[in-house]
């Protein structure tokens, strides 16, 4: 046998094994393991030992083949169902799978030959199309907004603005920054919700003028929502937040 065949032409040990099986025209399901192993060993003995990584993959397969060869000589192993186990079974399965993969790769290669002959083009979208701006759809833009709602929004903003200015303190030259106590506010509101069944967020904010007050009150409300003591609802954007207490005395 000529050993001029370089191992590199094989994609791996499975490829080499398939080659040997085909060359010897043997049944893949009944591999004459002794013969194939011998030929396999001859091949790998002939290759250069430079590429250790490639080599190791071939050596692993060599070990597998030798192992199968030994097991073929021993009495057949029997599995749980009492069936004899063919020591070659796993290798055969791998070879079949690999063979399928090879077969598919040839198929792909064939398809590529024709496929590359179809040319595509880059987008050429006319300038008029690219520059087009859809006219404003006012129906969609305005939605169900109307002047009355716009007026409500306006009033809400103006109220927010006056709320920000403390009528008494703004008279002072300098506004003292006072700390808002979260716990204090919490207990005050907890007390409030026991006495009131239904009220609005804005009611809670009465006499609270600093932004900090508002924030703390809001945090308390969130906390009470989490504990399930209250439920809140807001009909529309900018509407007052309505609060229903779950712990109020009936």
């Amino acid at each position, binding site marked *: 046998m000529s050993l001029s065949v370089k191992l590199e032409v094989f994609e791996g040990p499975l490829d080499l094994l398939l080659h040997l099986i085909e060359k010897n025209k043997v049944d893949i399901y009944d591999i004459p393991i002794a013969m194939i192993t011998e030929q396999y060993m001859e091949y790998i003995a002939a290759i250069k030992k430079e590429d250790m990584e490639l080599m190791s993959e071939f050596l692993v397969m060599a070990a597998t083949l030798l192992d199968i060869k030994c097991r073929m000589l021993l009495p057949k192993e029997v599995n749980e169902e009492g069936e004899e186990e063919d020591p070659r079974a796993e290798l055969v399965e791998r070879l079949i799978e690999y063979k399928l993969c090879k077969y598919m790769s040839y198929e792909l290669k064939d398809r590529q030959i024709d496929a590359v002959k179809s*040319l*595509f*083009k*880059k987008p*050429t*979208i*006319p300038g*008029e*199309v*690219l520059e*087009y*701006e*859809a006219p*404003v*759809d*006012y129906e*969609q*833009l*305005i*939605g169900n*907004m*109307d*002047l009355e709602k*716009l*007026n409500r*929004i*306006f009033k809400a*903003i*103006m109220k*927010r*603005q006056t709320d*920000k200015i403390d009528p008494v303190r703004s008279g002072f030259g300098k506004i003292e920054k006072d700390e808002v106590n979260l716990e204090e506010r919490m207990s005050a509101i907890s007390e409030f919700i026991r006495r009131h069944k239904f009220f609005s967020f804005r009611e809670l904010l009465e006499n609270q003028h600093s932004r900090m007050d508002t924030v703390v009150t809001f945090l308390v409300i969130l906390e009470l929502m989490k504990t399930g003591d209250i439920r809140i609802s807001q009909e529309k*954007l*900018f509407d007052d937040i309505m609060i229903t207490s779950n712990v109020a005395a009936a």
Partner: protein
Amino acid sequence: MNEDVNIPEEGNTEPEAFEEKKRAVKVKHPEAVIEAVLFSMGNSVEYKKLAEVLGRDVDETVRLTRSLKTKYDKDSSRGITLMELNESVQMCSKVSMYEHLIKIAKIPRKFELSEAALETLSIVAYKQPVTRLEIEKIRGVSSDHAINRLIEYGLIEELGRLPAPGRPLLFGTTEEFLRSFGVKSIDELPSATPERVEEMKKEAEEEAASVYVDI
């Protein structure tokens, strides 16, 4: 690209001029080849080059191309056509197809008013004419984006400039705003009276003065 391409005149049939044509093989389906070439190239293709591919002279190539264009244009089941440009030709979509192309090539705009835009709009509506600064003072936040959006949508517009330091722009609502909100007349809204302008001018001046004091 701009070499002197002389499109041969009709009568110009000197046989010696066809030297380079000796290997030109006439393609079988010239229309298909023109279509494929112009499609693949995307850009304009010189008749001279197209002629080489077709294995025909420029004259015949021009004729073939023009008749193909006529065929495209006449057939309403075709969406493409050809465009002649100088000594070249390009494939393009028919102008009548633009409205359909827009649907796919352009991301549809979402028309909606953000909370910031609504707030700004309400301020402009009820305080007009109003300056950018005033809007921001009322809202407590910068409102450039919201203002620009409202102008783009044609709901507010520039009314002029306040005759005050810095000559700030004045904004007011548009006719489209009135139409969209079903407002019959501007009277339903506080109008931009001369008194209001005077008032604002004073405010602006006071403000300017107070700024100086602060510094």
